[in-house]
């Protein structure tokens, strides 16, 4: 197990380096938002999800939805490394005609994508529909939606939370990338200092709080969807925005800032990834 976790952690370091390089090369933002959810994505795609990249539309595949669509730059790297499409496709990132924009395209345009997200509060409700559809059609697949704490501002997030609990949608899990920041400020200052885990609990979800950068804990918790309680599962993952690079960590300027060539070098040095 330890060796496996070590490999996942190494994968996460490589993904982080690629995201930072890509942000510099293509001059695209949302870097810190991507870095905070890399470990979650790696745990899901490289260990937990029952998926086959050669059959991206397989009927009984697990569905992972990046409801916080502004983490697309992280998802694109993960899907490439997982084998959904050649890594060389990413060379055209951000070019005219490329499918790689700042948010995920519709599934028809890129294998591995389950939903076009970016407008917050859409992906998770879409995932609820997919989870209910699985139950109606006697499928055993699970749906995991990754939402941001900023996204929990959206009313539709809570509309979906209510219906999912009422319908006992136990094949559905939500993982909150709780990095305590949203685009322009501290989450608790903007929309209130009420416990996020407490909210999910109050909405009828089986809720736990974990360190969102502890790979072993991420794998263990994500594997417990469904957890046999008859309730949907909420994992509030405490994360650090900009995680992995000391001069980006918990600094919200990196929501929009683009790293210079020097900063890319320094970041890779810290990550232990060769230049």
């Amino acid at each position: 197990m330890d060796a496996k976790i070590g490999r996942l952690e190494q994968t996460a370091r490589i993904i982080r380096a690629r995201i930072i390089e890509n942000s510099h090369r293509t001059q695209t933002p949302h870097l810190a938002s991507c870095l905070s959810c890399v470990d979650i994505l790696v745990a899901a795609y490289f260990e937990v999800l029952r998926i086959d990249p050669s059959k991206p539309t397989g009927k009984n595949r697990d569905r992972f939805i990046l409801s916080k669509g502004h983490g697309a730059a992280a998802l694109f790297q993960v899907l490439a490394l997982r084998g959904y499409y050649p890594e060389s496709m990413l060379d055209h990132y951000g070019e005219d005609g490329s499918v790689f924009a700042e948010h995920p395209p519709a599934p028809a345009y890129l294998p591995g994508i389950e939903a076009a997200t970016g407008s917050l509060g859409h992906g998770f409700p879409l995932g609820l529909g997919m989870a209910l559809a699985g139950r109606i059609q006697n499928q055993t697949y699970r749906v995991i939606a990754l939402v941001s704490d900023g996204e929990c501002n959206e009313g539709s997030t809570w509309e979906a939370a209510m219906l999912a609990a009422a319908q006992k949608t136990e094949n559905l899990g939500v993982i909150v990338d709780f990095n305590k920041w949203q685009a322009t400020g501290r989450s608790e200052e903007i929309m209130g200092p009420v416990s996020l885990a407490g909210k999910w609990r109050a909405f009828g979800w089986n809720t736990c709080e974990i360190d969102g950068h502890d790979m072993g804990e991420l794998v263990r918790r994500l594997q417990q969807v469904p957890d046999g309680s008859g309730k949907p599962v909420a994992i509030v993952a405490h994360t650090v925005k900009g995680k992995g690079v000391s001069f980006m960590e918990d600094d919200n300027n990196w929501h929009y800032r683009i790293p210079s060539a020097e900063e890319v070098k320094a970041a890779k040095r810290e990550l232990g990834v060769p230049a």
Partner: protein
Amino acid sequence: MRNAFADEITRLGASDPRVVLLSGDIGNKLFDKFKQQAQNRFYNCGVAEANMMSVAAGMALSGLRPVVYTITPFTTTRCFEQIRVDVCYHGAPVVIVGTGAGLSYAELGPTHHSLEDLALLRSLPGMTVFAPCDEVELRLGLRAALRQDHPVYMRIGKKGEPVIHDRQPDFQLGKAITIREGEHVCLISTGNMMPVVLDAGNIRILAQWGTERLPNFPHAPTLQEAGYPDVIYILWTGVFAPAKQEISSKKGKKKKQKRKNP
């Protein structure tokens, strides 16, 4: 039309296991038969239309044929972004039904009126928009909508509408149907305005009471020209009120006056 919708969706749900009905906490008892036959394919999504629309899109992307039903503004303007992004951009075959369309819920007040839905949903790429004029078209339209592989919006009335088609018309989504043949004028209509338009076709101006023809209606003869030279038409207006009636002035409040000798 509501009852015809409930009846037809119940039939279609019985023959097609992909049909799922989602309601935004309306249609009390209307869908009892559907629920009886397919309990696991009926969802009361509560008063949460934005989520309902996304859930429907997620179901459609997973091989089902969801039909979303609630009062027109709540299934269109309330959740327009969910229709735009989750349904249309994904090309998800969701059938969106708005009941009480236009002013057919006039008595419920402006919050329940829908005068923008046709224009808004027509603007979305990939969306087919359809307004049945009676329950015959509604049933044919709903069957056709569920055969599509893309989104359809269907706006319907409430109840008690007249039946326009006395036999099955040659129905195709996107193709006009001739209701009545004529020579001079072509009237084009859709949806629950159809009976009004058909009535309009029954009206003809016999004569007008002025001494000269009106520029807007040059074909309408004067009463004299029509052969009634002795008819005199006088229009007058007045207000009747009981004696000592209080009459409010324009500004109301303190300026009430009592009229002593009306």
